[in-house]
């Protein structure tokens, strides 16, 4: 029983990290129909900013997170304006080409300016201590990540389902031309959604750095995992993404505990099974 | 049973919404039937059920005495149950000639051959020429479909269907969206359809329906509310009621 709880809490923490990073990608792919393979690159940029702020400038963790999110969004604005806008509505493979290109550039430039070493984001004292849960000790940071995931999921749900921006967003997704005619400024809606997605990537990159360490190759190293999570959840669905992250986190963690030698087999076999059972993902929008 | 084609008690609902209720219908070889009804009456759903794109909740589809309800869409086509699409579904990068050639090759079971040339068979080429000629599409035979007029695309839909040598042909609004100058060509094509063929046509253009069909079936809210001669349609109270919600249609019926 203790072991089950123990695995469960690990799975939850890992799943939540995946969720925070991937939900942004899920939104861009599901709502904006852009296959943004550079999503991980933005998470990485945020990690570098946070690392610089917290380690080299000695700023607090919260300030570092804030700066990272703002900084990454600022960096993404010209990219959105000059590159991404060209590929809204393009065939997926053209988008893949463009966003892989952006990823390569980000990796190359990061490597050039910051070098290939690992960068860390020092945690505040409160988060770096182990917490005794009774059945085991766990790093406080993991609990923090779980909390972040819950807040992000709730916040996004509220934003999309309960605010006027959410209404405009859903209308634009359903029929951009019609929304335009109804006076929704779709360009603005797209730009804001893009910024939100990037901001989430940034948040995930920073709080997930303990799991996925920040280094230049980050942008490509975890791309497959992000893509798999988004597809299994169903692009554009918050609930789907949550479930996918939890299920895949659980499968991954359990597999690595029970059969570490065949962890990957376990994981990808589960992915194949899930995809065959739910061809649109858990909660995918009909195409 | 001398009926070539028959549906019995066909029903289908999406969630709680019944889109087809207990539809029964039969057609003899060579018959010309028109299926009309207001928007949302379930006409296209009916075609989808008959051709196998949708699985019915209940009921049977019988073709030439054989129950084809359990067969998939492809097998039904091969048995001679062929449709056209309300919104043309054509390959914009291919030419009309290529469309029809592919169809003829498929009918002859040669379409998935790798070791032969697409245009290598002169027998096929002659047949394609004939079909395109019959529908007046020869002059655009080698243009990409994306570049030909919409009316010609509609004719091509019919050409593809004919190339399959169907027994029963379901035409889903063959004249929809066609500029009025081009409708005579569609009408002409319809008149020239092989006389042995049973044709069911969905159409809004009542002039066309009157000239084409010997029998009319009216569908409303997934149910057959009238079946009879075209001349009787307008006078039927149920039909009038069904159409009254829609002024434009009511006028065209009257």
């Amino acid at each position, binding site marked *: 029983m203790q072991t089950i709880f123990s695995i469960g809490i690990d799975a939850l923490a890992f799943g939540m990290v995946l969720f925070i990073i991937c939900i942004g990608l899920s939104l861009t*792919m599901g709502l904006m129909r852009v296959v943004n393979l550079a999503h991980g690159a933005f998470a990485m940029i945020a990690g570098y900013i946070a690392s610089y702020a917290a380690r080299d400038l000695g700023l607090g963790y919260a300030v570092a997170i804030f700066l990272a999110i703002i900084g990454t969004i600022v960096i993404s604005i010209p990219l959105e304006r000059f590159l991404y806008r060209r590929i809204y509505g393009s065939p997926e493979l053209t988008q893949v080409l463009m966003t892989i290109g952006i990823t390569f550039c980000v990796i190359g430039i990061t*490597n050039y300016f910051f070098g290939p070493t690992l960068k860390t984001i020092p945690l505040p004292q409160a988060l770096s201590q182990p917490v005794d849960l009774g059945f085991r000790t766990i790093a406080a940071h993991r609990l923090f990540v779980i909390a972040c995931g819950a807040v992000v999921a709730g916040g996004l749900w509220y934003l999309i389902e309960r605010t006027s921006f959410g209404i405009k967003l859903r209308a634009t997704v359903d029929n951009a031309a019609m929304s335009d005619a109804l006076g929704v400024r779709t360009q603005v809606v797209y730009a804001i959604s893009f910024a939100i997605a990037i901001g989430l990537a940034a948040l995930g990159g920073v709080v997930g750095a303990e799991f996925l360490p920040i280094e230049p190759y980050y942008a490509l190293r975890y791309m497959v995992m992000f893509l*798999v999570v988004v597809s299994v959840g169903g692009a554009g669905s918050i609930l789907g993404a949550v479930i996918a992250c939890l299920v895949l986190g659980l499968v991954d963690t359990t597999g690595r505990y029970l059969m570490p030698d065949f962890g990957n087999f376990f994981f990808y076999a589960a992915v194949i099974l899930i*995809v065959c059972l739910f061809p649109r993902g858990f909660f995918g929008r009909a195409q | 049973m001398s009926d070539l084609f028959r549906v019995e008690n066909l029903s289908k609902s999406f969630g709680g919404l019944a889109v087809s209720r207990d539809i029964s219908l039969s057609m003899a070889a060579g018959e010309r039937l028109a299926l009309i009804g207001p928007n949302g009456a379930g006409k296209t759903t009916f075609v989808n059920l008959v051709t196998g794109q949708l699985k019915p909740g209940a009921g049977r589809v019988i073709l030439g005495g054989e129950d084809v309800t359990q067969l998939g*869409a*492809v097998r039904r086509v091969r048995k001679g149950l062929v449709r056209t699409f309300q919104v043309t*579904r054509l390959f914009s990068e*291919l030419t009309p000639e290529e469309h029809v050639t592919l169809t003829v090759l498929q*009918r002859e079971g040669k379409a998935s051959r790798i070791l032969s040339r697409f245009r290598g068979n002169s027998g096929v080429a002659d047949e394609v020429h004939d079909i395109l000629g019959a529908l007046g599409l020869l002059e655009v035979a080698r243009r990409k479909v994306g570049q030909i007029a919409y009316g010609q695309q509609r004719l091509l839909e019919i050409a593809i269907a004919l190339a399959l040598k169907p027994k029963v042909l379901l035409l889903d609004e063959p004249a929809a969206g066609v500029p009025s100058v081009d409708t005579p060509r569609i009408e002409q094509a319809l008149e020239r359809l092989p006389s042995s063929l049973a044709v069911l046509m969905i159409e809004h253009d009542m002039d066309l329906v009157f000239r084409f069909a010997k029998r009319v079936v009216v569908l409303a809210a997934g149910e057959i509310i009238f079946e009879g001669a075209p001349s009787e349609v307008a006078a039927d109270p149920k039909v009038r009621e069904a159409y009254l919600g829609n002024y434009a249609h009511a006028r065209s019926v009257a």
Partner: protein
Amino acid sequence: MQTLVQTGAVTKVHSVRRPWLRDVIGILAIVIAGAVGYWLFPDNLALLTRIIAVALLVLSIDLIVGYCGVATLGQAALFGAGAYAAGIACVNGVTEPMTLIAIGGTAGAVAGLLMGTIMLRAHGLAQLVLSIAIVQLFHEAANKASSITGGSDGLAGLMISPLFGIFEFDLWGKTAYLMGLALLLLVFIALKFVVSSPFGMLCRGIKQDPLRIRAMGAFVFPVLLKMFVISGAVAGMGGALAAISTQVVGLDSVSFELSANALVMLVLGGLGTLYGALIGTVIFMGFEHVVSSINPFHWMTMVGALLIAVVLAAPGGLSSLVEKVRGEKA
């Protein structure tokens, strides 16, 4: 507008009337490019051979993505199946190069059958993820079965007999290059026949509208599966060529990275023409080689910039640029 369509139509009719002429010119162009490569870069034949092997992989992706509309990020599973089959056969005493190519092709075809059977169950994004999962499983399997495959250390010690008993696979790589070039030509010509056969036309139809194809009375699944097998054979031969010319098979030949790179090359060159696959491979790998030789440390930025530039200048791929220029001339 009317005249525009008219002139367009006239040129189209011309090109349609003599499609074989275009292909003959295209194939001649490949021969010439191959010969030019041989004379111009006699010291880089190993690189050119590697480009040919990857070109076969990219061609095989074009068959699936460009002609059938099935997206895949796992094609290296088929390439790797061919490479490992040839490598394992070679280590076990089958050293004749042509036989090894045939073995690679067969293994690729079998792997293609398997992959197609699984992948064709899904569509769109889900299909893409299936392809990723499959290549990862292949990779894992090759890593685990290290007693047969050499695992991450690679399958080394391939001793290839001379081609026709005369031409050695040596340091200078002339034999490997010329054999690869001949293989590429044969495959290309064969594929030109495949895509212009009724089967090829059927695939193009399926890519645009599978529902329409069903309404024409043709089954979609077996047609696509057949293409997967053909594609697997082509990729497998590419893998075997890589194994023969390198004499080592590494796990990279069944990696997601190779699959993704190859797809990028295809999109770069342009989908659905076969020429695009070749152009994309040569440009991408050539460019990468040049910039990484000039600056081994920071060339990745330049490759990224190239990809972005191509999307901005020629969203349909480089081969669409060629078409555009031709169109303007006409």
